[in-house]
């Protein structure tokens, strides 16, 4: 969570941008991984080393094994996140505004979140087919809760004194929402979106497991269940992890830009 401190002083920011710790961490991780493979004497089909996985990763990207699946998954994630987070923003604001709405809806929201998405995904695939729609829905569903709750909490905790100030300057209802409440709740909302975007990755994979022709989830199934190609499985996981990290960083970058330093 060191990335969340928007108000961190400049020195801390410089430290964050320093690539050395990231590189060091990566080196330690890879070395430890390779050491484990050597010491344990694991075969590649059981636990491939980083070199084997790296080689498979490069090969699979170059020969076009991963690329079409990665593109499909990325599309699902982006669409699902957009739909889910967009709806969550609206519902979150409704929940923040109306205790009645909160009492009416929150049991279902919590229930939907507590129900394993793994169990719901096949049903969604049955009802909406195994195309893009069902995956977008699953992504949206899994993204919805954290963003809606973050929005609700964010808007509820907007400084009432700021709201009174805006009222004193005769802000209309919509001006209040757009100019005060959303900007003030933005750090919280974007915090929810950080969680949401990583969940969206999982949602897409689970959606693909529930059926589908393309996607990294399908590739996992293929690599593991059909090809017994463990290095490819790891290369796919690495791709998924990279997508997750990149999307997370995108949200963080958006957050920096929109929220910036606040007192």
């Amino acid at each position: 969570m060191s990335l969340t401190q928007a108000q961190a002083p400049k020195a801390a920011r410089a430290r964050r941008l320093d690539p050395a710790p990231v590189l060091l961490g990566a080196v330690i991780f890879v070395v430890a991984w390779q050491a484990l493979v050597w010491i344990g004497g694991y075969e590649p089909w059981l636990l491939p080393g980083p070199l084997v996985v790296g080689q498979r990763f490069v090969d699979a990207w170059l020969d076009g094994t991963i690329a079409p699946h990665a593109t499909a998954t990325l599309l699902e994630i982006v669409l699902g996140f957009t739909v889910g987070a967009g709806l969550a923003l609206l519902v979150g604001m409704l929940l923040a505004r109306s205790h009645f709405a909160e009492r009416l809806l929150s049991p279902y929201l919590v229930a939907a979140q507590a129900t394993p998405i793994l169990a719901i995904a096949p049903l969604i695939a049955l009802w909406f087919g195994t195309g893009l729609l069902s995956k977008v829905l699953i992504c949206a569903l899994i993204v919805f809760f954290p963003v809606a709750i973050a929005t609700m909490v964010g808007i509820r905790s907007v400084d009432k004194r700021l709201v009174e100030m805006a009222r004193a300057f005769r802000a209309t209802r919509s001006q209040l929402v757009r100019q005060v409440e959303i900007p003030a709740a933005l750090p919280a909302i974007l915090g929810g979106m950080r969680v949401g975007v990583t969940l969206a990755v999982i949602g897409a994979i689970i959606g693909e497991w529930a059926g589908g022709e393309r996607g990294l989830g399908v590739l996992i199934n293929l690599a593991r269940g059909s090809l017994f190609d463990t290095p490819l499985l790891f290369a796919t996981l690495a791709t998924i992890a990279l997508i997750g990290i990149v999307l997370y960083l995108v949200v963080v970058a958006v957050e920096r830009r929109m929220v910036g330093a606040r007192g």
Partner: protein
Amino acid sequence: MGEGRAARPGRARAERRLTRRRGARRPWPACRRPTPDRAPVRLHAPARRPARPETGDRPLASIDVADLARSFPTATGTPLVALDGVAFRVPERQVVAIVGPNGCGKSTLLRLVGGLLPVDRGTVSLDGTPVVGPDPRVGFVFQESRLMPWRDAVANVAFPLELAGRSASERLARARELLALVGLAEFAGARPHQLSGGMRQRVAIARALALEPSVLLLDEPFSALDALTRERFGVELLRIWQETATTILIVTHSVSEAIFLADRVLVLSPRPGQVVADIPVNLPRPRRLSMLDTAVVSVTAAAIRANLAGAADEPAPEEAWGLQPALAASRGRDPLEGVGVPAWFDPFGREGGA
């Protein structure tokens, strides 16, 4: 020129009163108060004032509060009566301070005047027209600066203009002008967290002035500031008042602050709040911090304190205003005993050779 006035406070006061009375009956801007120390900066377009209706036998006042009452529901079911039967008038261009013990409804009163709270009973009128909600003729300055942390200073000042639908270029020009007025021209791009408490409060005043209000309502605007900043700020506020065409109603905790700023000090009783005293401050304008050490101030402070007697708590520390000797004296037998002028008393160097 300023020294001359300071040397003959009585006459200056008489002149000013005369001007003000005349002004009250004349159409604005003839009523504009002369600002002898510096050339007036015309920030307000006179045409924006609403037409004033004739009020018959009642003299026209900028703020007219009659029989105001307001209570709040409580958990126990017995409503808490904050104010009951408050009435006062503030003529145009006057500065009136409201003092009173904690919880006497000072802030509630200010919100009722500004239309931020509905009244239970009574009326509030500005320039003869009633206040029914947040009012464009009012500029509000709160206890805390209440700046939006995600906006820089100029965007905070422009906020009311934005809400009012002014064009971007007009907003920017006006906000820059106002920041210059409060002495923060170079800080236009600064975020609130980069500004000191006093600077933030000055931005808040600039914001309150954005829509050219005829009335400025200030709710303990100094309470979050440190001692030295507070007194500088009082001087600064009066300068801004001189350069704008505003009537000021200020809630404060501090008797000395009230005396320094105001033409009249209204003392509120403990709950339910009522105006128990309306004490004129016979100090000439422009005010100088050195005046705080005169006998007039001590006597006025004593009068206010007498009316505050029995209040649950004492007003804010007086050290901030350098009033300690004078006030100590006012409590004792001889009000003039121990009067002195601290060396750091005139931060703006306006005391000249005094």
